[in-house]
């Protein structure tokens, strides 16, 4: 067996990786050379020297080298008598020659070439197909605006429909006639609830502490330090804990939902569900939405409590008040309605995060890159959506005088 792409023993390394080695000679003894000689039976392509990638053998075959050589029944004959080493470079060059010959109406006669080269060359078509460029349409700004509006409306509709399906599925499941497996629900509840306790706790504790710290310094100027209890309590209960917990869960659980569903899509797992007639809405959607919607309000309550404790710890070190006094002041200052407001918001945030993440996952492509894109989109949409929803809640609360 002849070696080939760079004989003798290690074609690969010498042919292409050899260039990596610093100080390795870059030119072989004989540089590759070629010429086209006219002849009675057609032109011949005379090759000499070493045709290797590293030796500079990647010269293109000039399309005009055949000039006005035209002729029916004539062939471009390869004369390889002077050929030394060779590798992919020679094949690449000869492919160019083969194409040029076909273009000029000449046959290509490579019988004088080493047999391995002939076999490789036989694989290569004389008229390669044009590379297929998929249609990549670049719309103008009007088209894009219209498209975005339509997509936005459609997605809102789909999300609402999914919310409706989930509610219906949850009701069915309550009556024991749903497709949701309790095991899936429990594992989702575990992931969306208890396993998030640590991160939610740490973040809320620090936020409560920061609020108390900043508040104390400012309130001290008005001798109103004791109102730091109201500041921390109301801020945590009404806004901070609800939003921070939702943002954490959007990143933690929303991203995971989107990645999981888009991977299932890629593995044809969702197709399999559909074929069996198991509704994706109740099998995939429902456990995700229900678990997050159940757990997030509880996480919010926990987060608020931890946030207030964070404020309490800072207040104890910086201000002259008894622990009991601090807690009494907190209970006096923070009304129950703040908790109810935050609790309700949390439920809606959670439903939105879960629905949006599932929707993004279901809409994703089927490749590994698409899974990454889906996870990113789920988190971004989740966070932006939460903030936007919070603004709506603020306006509503103002109008209702809550």
């Amino acid at each position, binding site marked *: *067996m*002849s*070696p*080939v*792409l*760079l*004989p*003798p*023993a*290690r*074609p*690969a*390394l010498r*042919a*292409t*990786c050899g*260039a*990596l080695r610093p100080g390795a000679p870059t030119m072989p003894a004989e540089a590759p050379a070629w010429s086209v000689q006219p002849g009675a039976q057609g032109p011949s392509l005379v090759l000499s020297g070493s045709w290797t*990638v590293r030796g500079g053998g*990647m010269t*293109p075959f000039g399309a005009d080298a055949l000039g006005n050589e035209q002729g029916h029944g004539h062939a471009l004959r390869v004369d*390889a*008598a002077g*050929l*030394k*080493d*060779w*590798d*992919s470079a020679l*094949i*690449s060059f000869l*492919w160019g020659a083969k194409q040029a010959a076909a273009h000029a109406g000449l046959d290509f006669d490579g019988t*004088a*070439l*080493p*047999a*391995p*080269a002939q*076999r*490789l060359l*036989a*694989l*290569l*078509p004389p008229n*390669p*197909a*044009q*590379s*297929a*460029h*998929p249609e990549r349409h670049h719309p103008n700004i009007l088209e894009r605006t219209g498209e975005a509006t339509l997509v936005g409306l459609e997605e809102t509709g789909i999300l609402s429909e999914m919310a409706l399906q989930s509610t219906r599925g949850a009701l069915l499941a309550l009556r024991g006639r749903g497709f949701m497996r309790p095991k899936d629900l429990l594992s989702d509840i575990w992931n969306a609830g208890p396993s998030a306790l640590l991160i939610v706790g740490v973040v809320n504790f620090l936020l409560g502490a920061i609020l108390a710290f900043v508040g104390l310094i400012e309130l001290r100027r008005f001798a109103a330090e004791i109102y730091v209890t109201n500041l921390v309590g109301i801020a945590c209960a009404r806004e901070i804990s609800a939003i921070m917990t939702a943002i954490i869960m959007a990143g933690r659980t929303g991203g995971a939902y989107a990645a999981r569903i888009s991977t299932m899509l890629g593995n044809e797992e969702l197709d399999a569900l559909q074929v069996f007639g198991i509704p994706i809405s109740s099998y995939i959607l429902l456990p995700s939405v229900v678990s997050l919607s159940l757990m997030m309000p509880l996480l919010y309550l926990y987060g608020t409590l931890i946030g207030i404790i964070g404020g309490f710890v800072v207040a104890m070190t910086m201000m002259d008040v008894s622990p009991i006094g601090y807690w009494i002041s907190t209970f006096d200052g923070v009304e129950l309605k703040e908790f109810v407001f935050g609790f309700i918001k949390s439920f809606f945030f959670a439903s939105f995060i879960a629905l949006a993440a599932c929707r993004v996952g279901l809409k994703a*492509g*089927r*490749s*590994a*890159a*698409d899974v990454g894109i889906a996870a990113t989109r789920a988190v971004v949409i989740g966070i932006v959506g939460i903030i936007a929803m919070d603004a709506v809640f603020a306006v509503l609360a103002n109008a209702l005088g809550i």
Partner: protein
Amino acid sequence: MAAPTPPSAGPANPQGAPTQTTPPAGETLIAVRDVTLAFGEKVIQRNVSFDLKRGSIFAVMGGSGCGKSTLLKSMIGLLRPTTGQIMVEGEDYWAQDEQRRTELNHRFGVLFQSGALWSSMTVGENVALPLEMFTTEPPDVIRRLVELKLGFVGMEQAIDLYPSEISGGMRKRAGLARAIALDPDILFFDEPSAGLDPMSSARLDDLILTLRDGLGATIVIVSHELPSLFAIADDGIFLDAVTHTPIAHGAPRTLRETCAIPEVTAFMNRLSSIPSSGPAPGQTPGKTEG
């Protein structure tokens, strides 16, 4: 397409063009010595020994779950054998440090079962990446090398398409183009025909033979596609899933005709159960241990 030529039949070139001496065909390229493969406590295969001869097409055969792919993984550096050696031209592969193993890996080309193309890159970029990483060639040379490799597998028109835009068979061929990007000495194929229609499968066999002859590569195929194995393989090993040991050595064609081990007979003749006749020791020339 020509029938498989024995590796020793070096092409007699009337022009005598290439001057370098070819290493003797039949020389051992990879020697697997008493290799045991296991995941934790679970032994997949034990006492696997064979020689991979230069220029041959070596088949790793056996039923599903017998450890064919695991053996392949240990040869391409993805799974360290529990015991035993894998000698690549006399060098103990797993005794080398990671850098040396990577260098050795540059001599390997691997075609994974489903192509394993990187989904965020076009087909052309997939083939170009190893060239960009491990050579210092300028971009236009790399582009032409990529076109050449894709041309070998008949995929030159798909250079700008993403893996998600092409069919399974095309992905496999593109994976093959990527496997030969660095002109490897040894090509490993994991189930090359799986999921292909009979014609595509036959074409892939032809392509493998042509690449073996054209590139001078040695080929290891993990497969249970019998027609394909009979057509191209000229040596092989049969792994048994029950005893977790290799039970026969030899070319699939020879094993089909001469091997009397019931498991092998059943496999080679597509029998649905293992024939009841007991093993006939001594009748099988290629038999090692049972």
